């Protein structure tokens, strides 16, 4: 009961942050195989290549977006600040390239449709035929 009240209160406080359902998307011609763990590793820079050997270009949403929070906490199990701290380590040791950030799903779709090796995520309701949805749990 306490929890429900908490959830309701939390929901009321952040009513502008509507619960978003995300879809991980790649270029339609990307024939690599994916699973949740691989997606997680790619978005944390721990795996740099797809199963087809191509180097992944990671694209994410700006840190203040609700979708980003959902994705970081839902798939990566980390707060966005912790994900950024993790990437800053990779970047400043020359082991990774900071993911490009976009401001909207439309911008994400545009970038992914232009780059065969890009991977990102968008709101499920934004999916178009310009991108391919990757199945994760």
């Amino acid at each position: 009961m306490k929890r429900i009240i908490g959830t309701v209160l939390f929901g009321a406080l952040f009513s502008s942050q509507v619960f978003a359902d995300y879809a991980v998307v790649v270029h339609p011609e990307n024939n690599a195989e994916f699973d949740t763990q691989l997606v997680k590793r790619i978005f944390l820079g721990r795996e740099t290549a797809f199963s087809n050997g191509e180097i992944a270009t990671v694209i994410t949403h700006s840190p203040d977006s609700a979708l980003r929070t959902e994705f970081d906490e839902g798939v990566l199990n980390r707060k966005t600040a912790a994900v950024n701290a993790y990437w800053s380590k990779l970047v400043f040791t020359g082991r990774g390239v900071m993911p490009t950030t976009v401001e909207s799903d439309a911008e994400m779709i545009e970038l992914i449709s232009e780059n065969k090796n890009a991977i990102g995520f968008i709101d499920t309701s934004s999916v178009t035929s310009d991108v391919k949805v990757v199945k994760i749990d």
Partner: protein
Amino acid sequence: MKKTLIAAALTASVALPAHAEIRINGFANLVGGVTSSDETLYGYDENFNFSQESLFALQASGSINEKMTATVQILARGENDYDPEFQWAYVTYRMTNNTSFSAGRFRLPLFKYSDSLDIGYSHHWVAVPQGVYDVPFNNIDGFRLDYADYMGDWEIKLGASVGTFENEVGGGVITGDNTYLVSAEISNDWLNVRTVYGTSTTTFSETQIDGLVGQFSALSPAFGDFYAINEDTANFFGAGFNIDRYSWFLAGEFTRIEIPDSFSSTDDTAYLTAGFRAGKWTPSLTYSVFEGDELKGSDELAALGEPLNSALRPIINAVNDRFAENYQVASAAIRYDYAANFAIKVDVSKYTDDLVEEDDATLVRFAINYVF
């Protein structure tokens, strides 16, 4: 070799194809601290000081081609009057998706947080535990081979580095030739264990020590040779673990640095740190120890017999008094994630010296960490 490597890395970075995308990133730590009255610690005293640990860094990297990347990092430290210096300058060649080869000046992966020790934003401390991390060979000029792969849920990382270093320490200059380092690391989602072994041919030169060694050598060449750090083998051993369940974490490291055939005592250092993450707040506790006060050369001197033994003993005792350190530091810190690339921290450290009680100190620091 050093200059050539850096020059090569720099040349490679400016010779990037015109269409290459050059990425500029940076980080900054603004750290201020003050001790209790009449005490000093890590260069801080009772007057509030901003320059001791503050730093600003810019990093530029770009792809030379599909397989090669050049990285240059320029860092300006407050303790060096913010004189910018090339912290890193290297070219990485990606041999396979699992293996990369780097050449130039880079951070030697001695410790768990070696790669990121300057990037305050990436960890929970105001500063990494100084006793463990403050060594004069964090950066070397040379080559590095890195391998990373997955075995089921486990990620395995192996590294090998070779090169040379030169740095100022203890009022003198230490150089390391033929420096080799191998490291192995295994991790899964929440556990990380690593071990590292290194060796180097080191030489230490400092006016007072050099003078003493000259006098010792005149009396007994064998003892002078033992006492000096002159192309002597130094060994580095380290082991560490990190348990990160996200809502809480526990990590620790142990290191040993020894130069057996010299006046330098073996330094054993360790720390244990634990904390938890509650929303934007990360409170943590850290306890570290430094033991390096063993008297070296005592047996070798005794073997020389009288009168040398009695005549020189006060001298080796005095040298040991100057370089010996044995202390513990307990600290409590809190990090607040103000924004996705901006953190604020405060910590309190209590330093307890086992050799010189008057050196005990309490230090309060705050930090602002920024990355872009």
